[in-house]
Every structure is written in structure tokens, then in C-alpha cells.
């Protein structure tokens, strides 16, 4: 359909521009911001064209680019995209465009390399979502760490060194185990393409080990419950745009990986262990919401809330295992719910981190007790923040509700207890989000010691566009559903095919 | 004829003596160099006896090469010793522990 290889441009254009920005660090702030704005805009336009020309009725892999990369080990430079990757590519380009707009009002020392690292990160994310050769996927999955490691480390808060090294090593440990399982699978299927892994017949023990390796690898990225402790530190120390991209897109890489690797390959083991994994995600939903309620730091609170919301994603995915046997439609609903939840959580957590960043710019403190009475001085901003807090607690009419609603429906399919516990998150997420709203936005603040004043025009554009998207996906998420529908049913059928 | 095993045992005894000389020595480096010479002596002895036992000359030819090389080595070793003494005013083994950890 296209003369130029669309996916490769999506990946290598931002990386190339990012490298230029990083290398030449003496060009002025305004020039580097305009360059970043331009590149992210081009990428957004290309991904929208990708979305339009991706015909979701057929749903299989499209825009395939496959060249031999390392002939000896038959690793291919294999890029392709299906419904799930298109939605995530769109999310990445949109969020990065917003970061570019938001960054124009931020001033950091040597800002050009700051923006350069973001562009490199964007390119690598595009690569992760469109790589279909497992080693290429692993390379993009791993090299995501470097730009973010530097962003958090150089422009982060006070305790940034500890946080960023912990973030790097935590994820590196997970992904390294994943590397072994990829090589092991490739050894059996003697090809690195992901689809070839789907038709392997593995013995039960093999599947258990592979499942555990993949689970640790992607579980750390998603962050699932026991391995999530890197996220609050990374968020608290990261600069605003850093924690925006971390929360809204990087967590989705873990979920995407699970759907791509975990579901189709280790199905038997998945079904066997599905109950434990569902308990894990339930713990993530309920326990983490309690922990989120106890936070004093705004960013930590939102970080824990994203762990809780990602709990829904993992639950949706593991429900597919649980319901595969007796109720495939409920399994498909669960998976679709997980997908929608990923997209909507991406938008909502990005918006919330933008809000906290704006407030931090005035009050220079992230603690809840230092920020009070914002609504008096920033009415439009607090209106939007209340909207996002409501979306975060899953108010219907916003996209936050759609994902959770589907996941709860499918969890009722397996047992009422799961559905009830998942539905509990309705109160819990409302309790901590509105607690944040109550303490920060409302309340009386005579002397305005924090110097709040209404947010600038570019911040209004950023938050405004996020409001529009969250509302649009909340009221009629049909556009998202028919994008994902065919790919989800393909995955479900490939799993049942694998099992039969 | 003395069986070959006696010679081998003799050379290993000398060899172990020289190694013991290296790590039991607490005095100075000269003693170390001497025990090194002893080690090469045991190897030469071993080569000659085995060459004679096998009845071909490569053993002895090998010994000549070893002798020349060992001579060069001990020359360099003594030169380094002098440089060390000029710098550190001591050649005592116990003082040579600045590089550690």
C-alpha cells in the first residue's frame, strides 16, 4: 500500500533525530523544542495514516517488512503490525506528541539531549510494538532501558541515582531470563520468528519453566504485585515527562509481551497455573489500592494506582487461560477488556502525571500536605484534574470504565468471587483518587504560598486533548473495539488451535 | 638400569621443593629468584632423563633452549629487582603489598 517502508520510518526517524539532538548539545532550547515538536508531529501523522490504512476486517499481520539480518543464526529484521500493535503505536505517538508540547514550557539544562533521549525512546517503543522476530523484539525491549535510565538519572529528583539503577537492574534481571527462554524456544523451532513458536509442542515441565521465565520478565515490566517495588521509586524521581512516558507506554510493553508470548506459547502451563496468577492480579488490584490510599507523595499514589489498574490488564489476560476450556466468549471479552484497559490507562495516567507536574512546577513539592486549595487559583486546571481523577476511578462515560467493565464481566464467568473482588476496586480506586482530589484541589488556601496560577496555554492544549480522547473512548469506544476485535479472536483461535 | 620412575620422582621432589621455596619465603625476593632457578633445574633434569629413556635427542635440544631462555629471564628479573630497590629502598617481600584489594 505504501511506497516507503512505513514501520521502519516510524522506528528509525525519531531515533536518528534523537541522536542528532543528543550529539549536538549546544543548539538552543527553542530550536530543539521545535525540532522535537516537528518530528513527533510527523510520527503522529504517519501512525494515523497507518491506522487508517490498516484494514481491521482481515486482522492478520500487515505492513510486513522482512529482511535477513544475521544469516548465520537466521535472525530476521521482521516488522509487522496487527490490531493490538496499531493501537499501541497510536498511543505511543500521541503521548510523545503531547510530551513535546508540554516540554516547550519546561526548561531543563541542556534540554536538547533531554528531548533527544525522548525521541530515541519513542523510536525504540515503536520498534518493540512492531517487532515480530523475537530477538529483534528483545533488542528493542532491552534498549528501552538506556534512554529512560539517563532521563531519570540526569534530570530526576534528589534520590534519582538509587531509583534509576534499581529500575535498570530490576527490568534487566527480568528480561535476561526472558532471553534464555527465547533462545531455548528458537533452539526447538530453529527460527526466531514469534509465529513459529506458536506451533511448537512442548512438554509440560518445559512449558512451566518457560511460563515462569516469561512471567518474571513481563511481570516486572507490567509491574505485577510482588515485583513492582521499582515503579514508585522510578516515578517519584523521574521528571514529569519521564514519568508520563514511563506510566503510559512502558508498562504496556509488559502487557503486550504477555499477549504476544505468554498466551499462545505456554497455554497448558497457563491453564494449570491460571488460578494463582489471577490471585496475583487480584492482590495487585486490592492490596495495592490500599497501599495507594496510604501514600503521602502524590506521584507515588498515582504510581501505585497504575499498578492497580495494570492488575486489571494481567487479570484479563490470565482469565483467558482460566476460561479457555468452558467459555471462550468470556475469555475473548476478558482479553479485549485487558487491551482497552491498557489504552485507557495509558491516557489517564499520562494526564494525571501531567497534572502533578504542573502543580509541582508551582509548589515545588510532591507531598499531598504541601499542596492544598489549588481549585481556588487554577479553576480550569482543577476541573480537568477532577475529570481525570474520576476517569482514574473508572467513572462510566470515560475510558477508564470500559476496560474494567469487560474484565469484571469475564471474571464473573470463572467465579463470582473473582468478579466481586475485582468490582471492589470500584470503591478502592475511587477512595484514593478522590482523597488526592479532596486534599489537593479543595480546601481553603488564603495566602497561596505555593504561588499557583492558571496553567499556560500549551498545558491546556495537552490536558484538553487528553480530556477529549478519554471522553471519546468512554462514550463510544467502538473505533477501538473493531480495531482489536479481529486480532483478539485470532489469538483466541490460535490458542485453542494450539491446545487441540 | 635405574627404572625411569625414580628419576621422575626425584625431579618432582625438586620441583615441589622450589614451589615451597616460593610461598614459604618471607625474607626477600632474591630467595624467590633462586627457588625459580631451582624449578627450571628440575624441569631440565626431567627433560634429559626422559629424552635418554626415549632414546632421542629432542629432550636435550629442548634443554639448551630452556637454559638460554632462563638465563635471559633471570637477567631481566635482576634488572627489575634493582629498579624496585631504587624506588622502594627495600626488596623485602612483606613490603610489596601496595597493590591490593
Amino acid at each position, binding site marked *: 500500500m505504501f511506497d516507503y517502508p512505513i514501520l521502519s520510518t516510524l522506528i528509525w526517524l525519531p531515533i536518528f533525530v534523537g541522536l542528532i539532538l543528543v550529539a549536538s548539545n549546544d543548539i538552543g532550547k527553542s530550536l530543539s523544542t521545535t525540532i522535537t515538536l516537528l518530528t513527533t508531529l510527523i510520527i503522529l501523522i504517519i501512525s494515523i495514516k497507518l491506522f487508517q490504512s490498516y484494514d481491521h476486517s482481515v486482522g492478520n499481520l500487515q505492513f510486513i517488512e522482512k529482511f535477513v539480518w*544475521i544469516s548465520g543464526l537466521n535472525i530476521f529484521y521482521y516488522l509487522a503490525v496487527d490490531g493490538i500493535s496499531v493501537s499501541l503505536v497510536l498511543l505511543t505517538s500521541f503521548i510523545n506528541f503531547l510530551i513535546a508540547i508540554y516540554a516547550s514550557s519546561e526548561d531543563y539544562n541542556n534540554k536538547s539531549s533531554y528531548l533527544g533521549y525522548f525521541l530515541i525512546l519513542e523510536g525504540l517503543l515503536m520498534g518493540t510494538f512492531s517487532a515480530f522476530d523475537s530477538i529483534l523484539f528483545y533488542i528493542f525491549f532491552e*534498549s528501552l532501558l538506556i534512554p529512560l535510565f539517563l532521563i531519570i538519572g540526569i534530570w530526576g529528583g534528589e534520590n534519582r541515582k538509587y531509583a534509576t539503577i534499581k529500575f535498570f*537492574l530490576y527490568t534487566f534481571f527480568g528480561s535476561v531470563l526472558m532471553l534464555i527462554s527465547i533462545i531455548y524456544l528458537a533452539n526447538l523451532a530453529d527460527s526466531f520468528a514469534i509465529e513459529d513458536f506458536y506451533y511448537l509442542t512442548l512438554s509440560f515441565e518445559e512449558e512451566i519453566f518457560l511460563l515462569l521465565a516469561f512471567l518474571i520478565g513481563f511481570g516486572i515490566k507490567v509491574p505485577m504485585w510482588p515485583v513492582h517495588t521499582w515503579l514508585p521509586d522510578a516515578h517519584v524521581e523521574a521528571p514529569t515527562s519521564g514519568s508520563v512516558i514511563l506510566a503510559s507506554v512502558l508498562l504496556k510493553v509488559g502487557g503486550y509481551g504477555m499477549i504476544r508470548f505468554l498466551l499462545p506459547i505456554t497455554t497448558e502451563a497457563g491453564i494449570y497455573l491460571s488460578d494463582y496468577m489471577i490471585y496475583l492480579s487480584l492482590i495487585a488490584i486490592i492490596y495495592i489500592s490500599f497501599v495507594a490510599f496510604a501514600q503521602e507523595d502524590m506521584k507515588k499514589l498515582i504510581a501505585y494506582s497504575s499498578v492497580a489498574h495494570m492488575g486489571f490488564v494481567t487479570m484479563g489476560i490470565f482469565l483467558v487461560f482460566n476460561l479457555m476450556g468452558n467459555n471462550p466468549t468470556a475469555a475473548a471479552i476478558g482479553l479485549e477488556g485487558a487491551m482497552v484497559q491498557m489504552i485507557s490507562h495509558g491516557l489517564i495516567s499520562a494526564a494525571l502525571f501531567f497534572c502533578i507536574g504542573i502543580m509541582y512546577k508551582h509548589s515545588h513539592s510532591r507531598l499531598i500536605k504541601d499542596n492544598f486549595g489549588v481549585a481556588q487559583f487554577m479553576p480550569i486546571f482543577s476541573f480537568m484534574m477532577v475529570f481525570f481523577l474520576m476517569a482514574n476511578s473508572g467513572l462510566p462515560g470515560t475510558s477508564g470504565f470500559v476496560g474494567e467493565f469487560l474484565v469484571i464481566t469475564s471474571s464473573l464467568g470463572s467465579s463470582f468471587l473473582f468478579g466481586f473482588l475485582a468490582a471492589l476496586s470500584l470503591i478502592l480506586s475511587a477512595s484514593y483518587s478522590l482523597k488526592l482530589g479532596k486534599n489537593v484541589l479543595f480546601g481553603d488556601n488564603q495566602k497561596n504560598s505555593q504561588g499557583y496560577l492558571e496553567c499556560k496555554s500549551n498545558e491546556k492544549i495537552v490536558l484538553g486533548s487528553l480530556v477529549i480522547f478519554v471522553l471519546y473512548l468512554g462514550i463510544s469506544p467502538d473505533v477501538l473495539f473493531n480495531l482489536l476485535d479481529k486480532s483478539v479472536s485470532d489469538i483466541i483461535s490460535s490458542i485453542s488451535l494450539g491446545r487441540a | 638400569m635405574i627404572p625411569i620412575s625414580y628419576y621422575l620422582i626425584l625431579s618432582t621432589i625438586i*620441583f615441589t621443593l622450589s614451589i615451597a621455596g616460593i610461598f614459604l619465603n618471607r625474607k626477600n625476593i632474591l630467595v624467590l629468584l633462586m627457588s625459580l632457578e631451582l624449578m627450571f633445574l628440575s624441569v631440565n633434569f*626431567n627433560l634429559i632423563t626422559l629424552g635418554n629413556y626415549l632414546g632421542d635427542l629432542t629432550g636435550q635440544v629442548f634443554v639448551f633452549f*630452556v637454559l638460554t631462555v632462563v638465563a635471559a629471564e633471570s637477567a631481566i628479573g635482576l634488572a627489575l629487582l634493582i629498579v624496585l630497590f631504587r624506588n622502594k629502598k627495600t626488596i623485602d617481600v612483606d613490603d610489596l603489598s601496595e597493590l591490593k584489594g
Partner: protein
Amino acid sequence: MIELFYIPEVILSIGVLLIIILDLYLQKHKYISFSLIQLLLVIASLYALTEVPQQNYSSYEFSEFTSLIKFLLILGAIIIFQYTYSHLNHLNSLKIEYFTISILGLVGTMVMISAYSLLMLYLGIELLSLALYALIGFNKHSGLSSEAAIKYYVLGAMSSGILLFGISLIYGFTGSINYFDIADQIRNINSNSVQYLGIIFGIIFITASLCFKFGAAPFHIWVPDIYQGSLISTTILLSTLPKIAVFIVFLKLYFIPFMALEYVWSDILIFIGIASIIIGSIFALTQENIKRLLAYSAISNIGFIILAMALVSNDGLHASLYYTIVYSFTALASFGVVTHITSNSHGIEDISDLAGLSKTHPYYAILILITMLSSAGIPPLIGFHAKLMVIQALINNSYILLSIIVVLMTVVSAYYYLRVIKTVYFEERENLISTYTSSNILLSINVILLLGLGIFPFILFDTTNFLVNLLTVISI
């Protein structure tokens, strides 16, 4: 007989002797003699390329494989001399003898790799060690380097003693010192005779001494001290050329004569490989001195090479050769960057000297970033592909548990590479850092190569594949 004069070893030795004599007259113009040395090296490399393979010399190998490796060694020497020249020039203690001795060491390495008899092997190793003793003690005025020299001398002599003892045992029990005769003897030996025991003891002694030269785990004790004590330019030489040479010796020694007893030494080498990876990673965690840190990272990289070689399989061989070349490239780059940075006018000692480099010299900060990430094995760079191949070789030969240990150790080792990046990028500057830009272009090519090869690894992959196929003499 005449054509013997056209092999690089002879040309280099004669050339060096001439230069030593010439140098007496050119005391003041050191750069003329240095350019002469470079000219000599270039001529030798041309001869290495055009060497014609011959079969009629039993104890010395003239094959395409050795000529290519010789060319590689000379190329490495040229790059190292550039760095050393700029380093010594900066410390204005430039002496031409440094280069002449290292060329002799280079000749030693060439002899080692093309040896077909244990005698030639011993002579090559001794020539190299003699040159290295002198180079390590080159800095006459610093107590540290003389102490390092003495330590290396004593331990080196001891290891060559052990080597000789091993060779004598092998000679005694197989009756010959030529690789192929030994191979025939060992192939038809019955396993409960006394010769069998003697040969095994001989192999162990030789392995011990070669592992000492390689700097592998239980015999690595000298590596950190000597790397820290000697001049930084000697460390570059020490950590690249001898390592390649000893690797090729390992390759030829174990895959031709001792091939039949493969099950004996492959277990030893696996133990040594794993031990050096673990020790290399664990010891380096709390290091303060940058040279010691790079020494331990060298030890863990050597562990990877030995582990890959110990698998005695075609892809294991290929992986180890690939890893050696990548390792020497990375070592060249990382030590090269460290040579180019001096903090308050004397060489970099501790990591904290590098603090805040990204603020003052962002270009060098990027260089350090790339080298550290490549040696840590992070994907976009070449280090990752090397580690990937070794792990894949491990898994193909179903050493799953081993690969898990190796992979966990890379995570542990990633920490101290990150610590260096942390000090360079995240901390504030304390002392005056200055850099000199004499051989800057070469350094940046070297580092950018790491990134470039990372993105297009097939270039290096095909060359090593070609090299391995050249090794026709080895049959696995």
C-alpha cells in the same frame, strides 16, 4: 628457504634492530623514529597478507588462518601504538624503546600462534613474557609499576616453570613434541596405563600455565594488581594482544593434540570459565579504581571465551572466536578512552575522578557510555551479540543451568558498569578534568564501530565464520 625472509616475524625483528641502531642518532627527533616504526608495521602487515601457505615445515604453521590472525595482531598493535604515543607524549616520558620492545612482544605472539611444536610454543610464550616484564616495569620512577613488574615476573616465571614441567611430562609419555605426533599417540592410548595418567597430569599443568597467561579465574590473581600498577598504555597492550594469542594457542593446542582426551579438559575449562565469570563479576562490584574494575571485567569476559570454547562444538568455537574479537575491540575502546582523560594532570585513578564528565566533556561521556553499555551486554551494542552467541551455544549444547548462572552474573556485572555511567553522568564535577585530542579520531572510530557493529552485526559475524572455516586442520 629464501622465501622464509618474507614472513612478518623476520621482517619485524630485523626492522626493529635497524630502528634501535637508527634511534641512537635521532635522539632529538623521536617522531621520525616513531613514524619509522609505523612504516615497519605497515610493511609487515602487507607481508602477512601476502604470505604464501606452505606445508613442508612440521613445527611451524604457514596457513591462511595464521596469516590472517597475524594481520589482525599487527592491526591491533598499530592502533595501540597510536594510543600509547599520544599518552606517553602527553606525560612527556616518550621513549622509542617502548615501541621496539612491544614489537618484539608482537613477534612473540606471532610465534606462539603458528607453533606446531611445544618447543616453538614455549619460545613464543617466553619471548612475549620477557617483552611484557620490561613494558610493565617501564615507568622507572613509580614504585607501583616496579612492584607490579616484580610480581608479574615472579608469577610469570613460575607459570612458565609449570608449563615446562607439563611439556616434559607430555614429551616423556608421548615421545614427541610435535602436535600431530602427540595426537596420534594420544588417540590410541589405553586408559589404565601409566602413560594415560602422566599425559593427563601434563595437560593439567599446561592448562594451568596457559590459564595464568590468559588471566582466567583461579589463576587470575595477578591481573588486577598488574593492570593497576603498570602504565595505562601497557595495560592496553597487556589486555588485547596476548589475550588473542593465548586464545589461538588454546584453540590449536586443545583441538589438535589433546583432541582425543576432550572429556578431560572440557570439564576443567567449563569450571575455569564459570569461576572466572563469577569472580570477575563479584569482585568488581565494590572496586574504586577504574583500572582494577576494567581488569575484573576483563576476567569475566575471558570467562565467557573459555566457556564457549569448552563446549567443543562448532558453534561454541565460532562463539568464542567472535567473543574474543569483540572483547578486544571493547577493551581497546574502554582503555583507550581512559588514556585520553587526565584529571588534574595525572592519569585517571579512581572512578570518582570521572565525576561530572558529561558536563565538561559531553563527547567523552558518550564514548564512555557506549563502551560501558557494550561491555555490560545491553542490546543495541556489539557486546550483546557476543553474549547472545555464547548463551545460544550454551543452550544448544543443553547447558541450561550454566546459561542461567551466566546470565545472572551479567546482571550483577551490569551494576558496576552502571556505576561508572552513574559517576560520569549523574554526579557533580570535583576535580579539573582535561583531555588531549591527539589520537581522537581513531578513538571515536573505534567506539562508533561498537555501535555500528551492534546494529549490523552480520559484518563481524561473516568474517569470524570465514575464519572458523579456514581452521580446516581442526575436526570436531
